[in-house]
């Protein structure tokens, strides 16, 4: 791809912008329908029908939700910090969307006589960017809870902070073996390295740690302690209403998609797969992850806070470290080309 020292030609820019637009459209739509899918699947798990009133099979429900959220009163608690309060939802949603820029979501296609990678930006430090952006996302939670000036929101955001710091660590550590195997931080390289076999086969432990960590990362049951409606009303977004609440909400679902995509990229060979086109393989894997998240939500209860911290610090992190050492030892024994 074009280096930093090359002036990009207009065609290049147009294609990138088109890709950005396409990704945004797909992600936002998918996120909206993911909400709908979650409600339907949870309903089935509970022997209900779920939303089925708006449009055929309730398919227009996301639209109705959107209209409802947009028309609701945009309320800020009088004692809250107004600016931060309004800023926080955006800080939660935007990093999640931005992360998708580095995810390769299909096999490169040939268009207008050039190879066009199905990826917005193939950075050579893609994995690090993902780690950085996921750290920024927590600011939304922290600031939202703090700016609300409400005890529930503050408690929720504090929990969110502590939880994210702990799980970021195990998540990052679980990715180290991947980098060691692929010998690159570039996500397209990581996908390419799995041509012979998905990393999940070599690194089942790392995959398990990563899976648990991303559940905690996107604050899903059984790790939804920052929200914990049974204890904290709605946790960090207790005081939010209308579309600002909607941003937090949609941010969570974009996060599911992004983290699902990354999990597919790191461990399930990304867009690679037999017979079917890469695009389908990729999105199929993403949706499988999304379904898994929903399924888990419909099954498991919420952990207690100390159990959560215990799991993060005392189980996942040491396991990830051991895993790195084991991988390093194995690589050392196997020589320069283990795969």
């Amino acid at each position, binding site marked *: 791809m074009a280096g930093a020292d090359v002036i990009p030609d207009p065609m290049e820019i147009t294609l990138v912008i088109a890709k950005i637009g396409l990704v945004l459209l797909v992600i936002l739509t998918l996120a909206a329908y993911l909400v709908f899918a979650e409600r339907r*699947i949870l309903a089935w798990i509970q*022997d209900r029908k779920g939303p089925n009133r708006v449009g055929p099979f309730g398919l227009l429900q996301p639209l109705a939700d959107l209209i409802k959220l947009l028309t609701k009163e945009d309320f800020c608690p009088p004692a809250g910090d107004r600016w931060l309060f309004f800023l926080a939802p955006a800080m939660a949603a935007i990093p999640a969307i931005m992360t998708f820029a580095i995810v390769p979501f299909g096999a490169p296609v040939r268009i207008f006589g050039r190879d066009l990678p199905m990826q917005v930006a193939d950075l050579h430090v893609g994995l690090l960017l993902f780690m950085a952006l996921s750290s920024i996302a927590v600011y939304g939670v922290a600031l939202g809870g703090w700016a609300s000036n409400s005890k529930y929101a503050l408690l929720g955001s504090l929990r969110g902070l502590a939880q994210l710091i702990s799980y970021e660590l195990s998540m990052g550590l679980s990715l180290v073996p991947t980098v060691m195997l692929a010998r690159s931080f570039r996500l397209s390289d990581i996908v390419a390295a799995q041509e012979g076999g998905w990393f999940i086969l070599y690194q089942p432990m790392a995959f398990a740690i990563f899976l648990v960590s991303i559940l905690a990362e996107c604050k899903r049951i059984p790790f939804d302690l920052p929200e914990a409606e049974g204890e904290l009303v709605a946790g960090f977004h207790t005081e939010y209403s209308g579309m600002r609440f909607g941003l937090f909400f949609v941010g969570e679902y974009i996060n599911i998609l992004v983290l699902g995509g990354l999990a597919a990229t790191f461990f399930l060979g990304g867009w690679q797969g037999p017979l079917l086109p890469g695009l389908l393989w990729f999105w199929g894997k993403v949706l499988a992850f999304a379904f898994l998240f929903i*399924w888990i939500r419909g*099954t498991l209860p919420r952990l207690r806070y100390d159990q959560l911290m215990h799991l993060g610090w005392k189980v996942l992190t040491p396991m990830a470290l051991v895993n790195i050492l084991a991988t390093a030892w194995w690589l050392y024994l196997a020589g320069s080309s283990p795969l």
Partner: protein
Amino acid sequence: MRVIDDMTAILTGLWTTWKHILRRPVTIQYPEEKRIPSPRYRARIILTRDPDGGERCVACYLCSAACPVDCISMQAEEGEGGRRRAAWFRINFSRCIFCGFCAEACPTMAIQMTPDYEICRRDVMDLVFEKEDLLVEHCGKDPEYNFYRHAGIGVTQPRGEGEGEKPTVDVRGLMP
């Protein structure tokens, strides 16, 4: 091993929920399909009449006393023949929690609950039902019962002619 047990537990849970995904939902599509509740279902409250067609309610205030949300109010008055009746009787269905204590407390079987659960109104004040709205033209669930026939103080029949009563004592009579 504990880890294996825990994993098994989680997987069992996932398997259980998976089975439910495939199961037929129990939801009844309310406005289109309607469930027919059992006759003893506790919904809209009515005031029934005794077999003679008279109002059963004697405004004894027991229902309003039993009501945990204070949604029943009334004023008793003396009707014709010394019969006690409600001058006005009011149930505020916007407060009512349909606990059925009123029907349980009612000594004359006047207040009864019906399976009619569709009592929504656009205006909350329309949920305040007056006696005219509550009073029905039938005996409800106890078609035989007539309080004043058993009460033992006359009113609907001459004294001493109610059910299970001896004729009135003549204090000046000859029999000891």
